[in-house]
């Protein structure tokens, strides 16, 4: 029928094409990994990327279609792709709408453990010196409830917070009263080694829907070596605590985190099996953080980013195999990264965001009333570095803390969107600024990324996940399930 036009009539000539912003990195002699403005990945050959940059693409050549669908090129008179990218970016960044949803209360510095890498805790029975006072807690709560989030989480930290259970009870009931008046929802978490868990505490947690978060480093000998306490039974107490808490509160009301020390590196399978044995639904493979005593005791430099990545890759392999054997089980850090890579959900997780989450993601109220921009910032202060101490509960309010020059400087100077190396990095959309880490390791919130072990780990993890997604459909199917839900 003559009234219909042939396909060629609808092609745009190349002078009507324009490039959209994208980042890329060489992955092989002829190969490039390319990401668009919102971090969708596509692989191109060197020849293809050169053609693309010169806009030597024509509808029908296959490259045009791939580049157009991936938002690398657009028609210079078209608007929809730019609007689409704007909308998706807005969704990805909308974690910024919930300002300071997390508030940590260090109710005591005292602890009955003496872990070598612990940055902060004190072996002391002197309550007056290392416990938070009721007045300080009350002021902290006032500040917490000033933040604009519709829902806040209060996390109890230590030391071992259960050593000051009385104050926890007071804060919970005061927060609930405020929550009712100000119609701001409030959730609670206690970060504890569970050694002091008893029926009274469990009943209290149950009645107030309080979550427990604990540490479990792996098998008994490893855990007990990492976490010495009188009696040498940290592992036994943690495991029986997890079991009891799951029974009393429900299986999803207690979580465990592990820390990788040098001694862990060769034992990732055993560590994972420990989590599996306890019926937990996943594991968070975490590197050791470079703070406080961890640096002082030279723990931090005991292993490199590459040896940690090797540990992570073996662990992920083990986790995937567990899934293939029929048990759903996740590696949580990969889940977060995959959610960023495969969806536009807003992820405010502290290591994976820019603007950084210091202050505007979390505030920490120290036992003595000092307010910090992050938990790591508080740990730095214990070794004399006050870079992330924003003020004091008696002298400040939410506004003065969050608008302090110190905080604004650290956040704005560390933005990955404009940082050298990051701004052109193919992984930028899924990465994070992490100013505290770079301050601690390089003395500068921005940091020189090629020297950063954080950067090395991020790149290593993302490259590894992409490789699995490309090479193993079987594994990819599992990884896709972890994204987003």
């Amino acid at each position, binding site marked *: 029928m003559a009234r219909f036009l042939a396909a060629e*009539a*609808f092609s745009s000539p190349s002078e009507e094409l324009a490039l959209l912003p994208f980042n890329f990195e060489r992955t092989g002699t002829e190969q490039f990994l390319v990401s668009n403005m919102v971090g969708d990945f596509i692989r191109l050959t060197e020849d293809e990327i050169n053609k693309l940059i010169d806009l030597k693409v024509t509808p029908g050549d296959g490259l045009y279609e791939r580049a*157009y*669908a991936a938002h690398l090129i657009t028609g210079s008179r*078209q*608007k*929809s792709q730019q609007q689409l990218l704007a909308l998706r970016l807005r969704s990805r960044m909308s974690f910024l709408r919930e300002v300071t949803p997390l508030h940590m209360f260090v109710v005591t510095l005292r602890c009955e453990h003496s872990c070598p890498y612990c940055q902060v805790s004190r072996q002391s029975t002197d309550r007056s010196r290392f416990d938070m006072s009721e007045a300080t807690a009350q002021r902290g709560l006032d500040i917490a409830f000033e933040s604009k989030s519709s829902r806040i989480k209060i996390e109890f930290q230590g030391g071992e917070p259960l050593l000051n259970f009385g104050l926890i009870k007071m804060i919970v009931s005061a927060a609930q009263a405020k929550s009712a008046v100000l119609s701001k929802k409030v959730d609670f978490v206690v970060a504890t080694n569970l050694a002091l868990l008893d029926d009274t505490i469990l009943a209290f947690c149950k009645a107030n829907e309080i979550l427990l978060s604990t540490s479990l480093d792996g098998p008994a000998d490893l855990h007990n070596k990492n976490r010495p306490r009188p009696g040498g039974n940290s592992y036994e107490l943690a495991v029986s605590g997890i079991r009891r808490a799951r029974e009393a509160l429900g299986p999803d009301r207690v979580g465990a985190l592990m820390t990788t020390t040098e001694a862990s590196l060769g034992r990732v399978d055993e560590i994972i099996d420990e989590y599996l044995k306890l019926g937990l639904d996943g594991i968070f493979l975490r590197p050791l953080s470079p703070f406080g005593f961890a640096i002082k005791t030279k723990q931090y430099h005991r292993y490199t980013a590459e040896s940690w990545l090797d540990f992570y890759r073996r662990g992920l392999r083990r986790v995937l195999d567990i899934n293939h054997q029929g048990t759903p089980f996740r590696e949580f850090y990969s889940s977060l990264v995959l959610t960023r890579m495969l*969806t536009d959900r807003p992820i405010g997780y502290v290591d994976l965001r820019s603007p950084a989450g210091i202050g505007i993601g979390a505030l920490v109220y120290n036992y003595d009333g000092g307010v910090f921009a992050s938990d790591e910032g508080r740990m730095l202060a214990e070794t004399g570095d006050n870079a992330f101490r924003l003020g004091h509960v008696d002298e400040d309010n939410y506004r003065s803390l969050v608008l302090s020059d110190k905080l604004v400087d650290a956040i704005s100077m560390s933005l990955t969107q404009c940082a050298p190396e990051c701004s052109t990095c193919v992984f930028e959309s899924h990465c994070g600024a992490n100013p505290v880490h770079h301050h601690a390791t390089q003395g500068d919130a921005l940091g020189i990324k090629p020297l950063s072990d954080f950067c090395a780990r991020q790149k290593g993890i993302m490259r590894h996940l992409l490789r699995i997604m490309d090479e193993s459909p079987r594994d990819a199917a599992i990884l896709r399930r972890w994204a987003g839900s």
Partner: protein
Amino acid sequence: MTLALSGTADRCRGFEQHTRSVIRLKALGDARSSAGADFTVVRTSDDLKRVIQDSHEAIFAIDDGTGCFLSSEGLPRRAITVPAQFSYLAPGDVIGIHTPSRKFRTLYRHNSRHNSFLVTERCNNYCLMCSQPPKDIDDRWILDEIRQSLPLLDKETRTLTFTGGEPLSDSVEFIGLLADCRDQLPKTAVQVLTNGRAFAKSEIVDAWRKVNHPSLIAAIPVYAAVDHVHDYVVQAKGAFDETILGILKLKDRGQRVEVRVVLHAQTAPIILDTCRWIARNLSFVDHVALMGLENTGFAIANEAQLWIDPIDYRAALADAVDVLVAAEVNVSVYNLQRCVLAQSVWPYAVQSISDWKNAFISECEPCTEKSRCAGFFSSGRPRRSKAISPIL
């Protein structure tokens, strides 16, 4: 079996004041009447006698096939008589009639789940497979006819579809009609089949949103992830950009949107790419419908460019559905038979073909899936997959 939805009345009298009228059928003895729009259905000479005895109501007489009972004298003053092929018409149905020519169209069938109003035959696309080939004519009278019909519809009607042409060709009038639906049929879900290009204009989206209809959805076709492929299918350069922009503006204002992909030789081979793109970029739409082609209208003329045996895209379609499901996009497959679909797609396959043009073939008789199968279009020039065979 295909129902005839339009035809010519044998007689039509008593409409002297109007050239176009909308009437509703009612049962013999039903006392309800709506300002003279109700016509009593008469099927036999007995029926006719009763009407004449009881009252002087207007009648809608359907020939019983013999042609005799209608010859009797004494028809009421207002009467329409139609041939026997319209015996499916029943009380509650609504009909639009052009009295000088006696041409009429069934606008609404009370017993059907698939009521749709054609709003106009004009369209700014010219799709290769259009089932309702666009005409550039002044047919704005149709909007009036619909406006008159709405008060006559059953308030319990579950859904109504507006189709075209492009319903938003006269956007102000059409959006006014949506406000009428909101007021007169508050319980009825309304679906508008539109090419979406009009929504690239913010003022049209704003007007649409202001109607604040409780259950309104715009169903908009997207045929590819790439501009020139979509533009070729709809035969309009620049359409892809406007359509996508329109979808974004609707969603930005919280309006409901369904994305539709009609599957034919231009779109089916790339359906996985298209659905990957939808999953990544438009995952916030309310529904995605992947639709088998109805071989009618332009689709027959363009068969050489369009025909593909559904069995040849079975695997790609299964992967495409998978990708959408994994992205938590609400997806359905329309118009395709179970025996040409991968079993993984069955839970998403819907019996979508309107009852008046839906059929099965003799192969289907022993099939265990027949009661769940979409079956075939009986309209146009049906073409079937070589893979049709009963599931036993």
